[in-house]
């Protein structure tokens, strides 16, 4: 072999090796995703995938925790003992969901404290739906029916999300959410069969929550910056608009059972598409609420920060006590070993 040829081979093969070593893990990763193999915490993953998941899971966890506030607002005023108990249990479930999700995000290398700090400093977002007020008892029913309903529509596909811990957390969460949704609908059904005042309360709550609920699916596909990559990585399985359309189709039928209406004059069944057409969404309002100018943004954040700050002495005391116990254990072990 001539020297020239050898040199060519050497440089060429080295270059190939180099490009292989860069592309190999990424390719292997995408390959696993394409073959529907779950990614687990110890597996290699691209940084951007990790970041996208942390953003999404922590946002989801924060939504559960902030979401406890508008519903918790009616615990002390629930109109019967049965309703009081189911509402406490429901809000408690949301706390549990927050816990699973924080734990799932922690497998990606971020601590719960960091995530909570991001929430309190406004760096991390939560679902903007919880910035709307719960003004009457009917709002508790509507949150179950529409807000949890929209959440389920979003979350059921996440049970097949490519990241293992997230998808497993979602399986548990979805089971409980569908229970909540039925409870919410049942509250509305009772109101819809009640007195004139109760019917009015029911329709009013639907009117106030309908548009914010369908905004929960996020911006329309052409304005959603993360959708494309998220679908390639199979974190998401359907686009925002696909899910929103399904939700509208379901609710437009369910509202008939209540004998109520959805506040959209353009809502009409379209024979050709086999779907409901609906009116334009006010994205200006959506952006406003996301940017902190919704009706309750300040109250919600203030309540979370207050709970955290007022709990600081409790957490410090618990840590100090635990430390003291540990020291006692250590010194008693030492004493014992010295004696023997």
């Amino acid at each position: 072999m001539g020297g020239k040829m050898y040199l060519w081979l050497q440089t060429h093969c080295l270059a190939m090796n180099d490009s292989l070593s860069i592309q190999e893990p990424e390719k292997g990763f995408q390959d696993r995703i394409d073959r529907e193999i779950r990614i687990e915490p110890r597996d290699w993953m691209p940084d951007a995938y990790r970041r996208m998941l942390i953003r999404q899971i922590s946002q989801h966890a924060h939504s559960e925790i902030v979401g406890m506030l508008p519903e918790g607002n009616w615990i002390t005023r629930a109109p019967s003992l049965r309703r009081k108990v189911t509402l406490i249990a429901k809000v408690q479930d949301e706390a549990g969901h927050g816990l699973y999700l924080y734990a799932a995000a922690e497998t990606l290398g971020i601590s719960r404290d960091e995530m909570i700090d991001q929430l309190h400093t406004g760096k991390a977002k939560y679902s903007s739906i919880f910035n709307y007020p719960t003004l009457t008892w009917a709002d508790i029913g509507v949150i179950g029916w529409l807000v949890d309903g929209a959440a389920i529509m979003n979350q059921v596909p996440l049970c097949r999300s490519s990241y293992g811990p997230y998808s497993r957390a979602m399986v548990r969460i979805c089971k409980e959410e569908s229970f909540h949704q039925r409870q919410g609908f049942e509250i509305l059904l009772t109101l819809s069969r009640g007195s004139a005042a109760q019917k009015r309360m029911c329709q009013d709550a639907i009117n106030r929550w309908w548009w914010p609920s369908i905004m929960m699916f996020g911006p329309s596909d052409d304005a959603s910056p993360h959708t494309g990559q998220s679908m390639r990585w199979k974190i998401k399985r359907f686009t925002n608009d696909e899910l929103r359309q399904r939700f509208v189709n379901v609710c437009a039928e369910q509202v008939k059972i209540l004998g109520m209406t959805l506040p959209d004059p353009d809502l009409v069944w379209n024979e050709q598409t086999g779907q409901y057409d609906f009116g334009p969404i006010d994205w200006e309002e959506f952006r406003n609420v996301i940017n902190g100018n919704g009706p309750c943004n300040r109250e919600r954040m203030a309540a979370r920060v207050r709970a955290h700050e007022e709990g600081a002495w409790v957490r410090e005391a618990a840590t100090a006590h635990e430390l003291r116990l540990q020291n006692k254990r250590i010194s008693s072990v030492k004493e014992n070993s010295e004696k023997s």
Partner: protein
Amino acid sequence: MRRDQHIHYLLHLADDSLILGHRNSEWTGHGPILEQDIALSNISLDLIGQARNLYQYAARLVNRERGMKEKVLPGVKVSGEVSEDTLAYFRDSRDYKNCLLVEQPNGDWGKTVLRQFLFSAFQFLLYDRLKQRDDQQVAAIAEKSIKEVAYHLRWSSEWVIRLGDGTAESHRRMRHALEDLWLFTGELFVAAPYEQELLAEGYGADLSSCRLPWEDTILETLARAGLFPPEDGTSNGSAHTGSAIMTRSRAGGKEGQHTEHLGYLLAEMQFLQRAYPGCEW
């Protein structure tokens, strides 16, 4: 046994559980640690569950006897049968029979867990006695509930120890909480007239037999927390009562003489039922 006294007793037991459960539920969503928010909500659920069992039983007794409705719910117009909700939502504070301890405002986390501890230690002893008594319904409810109460007692005593033994600040807060709440513990052991009457006929529980074991539990946990009960400020010293820690106390709740706090709690809790009477919810 006079039926109305029996019903008053059931309402007293139910009111204790409902009011404490309601107070605890004010924390839901606002707890200092997510796991503990869940734990306290759980205790709320247990307590309100106990209250429901007792109210349902009381409602059956009310409905069974002509004229009983007027005795138990004076001045309240009830169309149809009395239910657990009629009893919870249509009695005013003068007809509520809970102890003053359980209606005290939550204060900080330390005061809340201490209130739970002082009450659970008592409730455990009470239910332990009730599960052996002649009223089979009450015995069954006590039997079921005592497992929950054992957990409430363990959970709350762990918190009392943790906070008493934690930092200088947590210790100080627990001392204040103890001073605030201690006044209300004496009432737990003073039998109301309906309790005395029931006891004479073999129903209910002998509260005086609960006192010393309660003190043992309390003193043991407080000692582990580095806390002491406030000094005795009355002449009801140990020499007269056999009690090591008898103190000045405030009472009246069991007979409907409450602190001002209960009125606000009920106004909030009962608002929907009262604003829209006669509705299904």
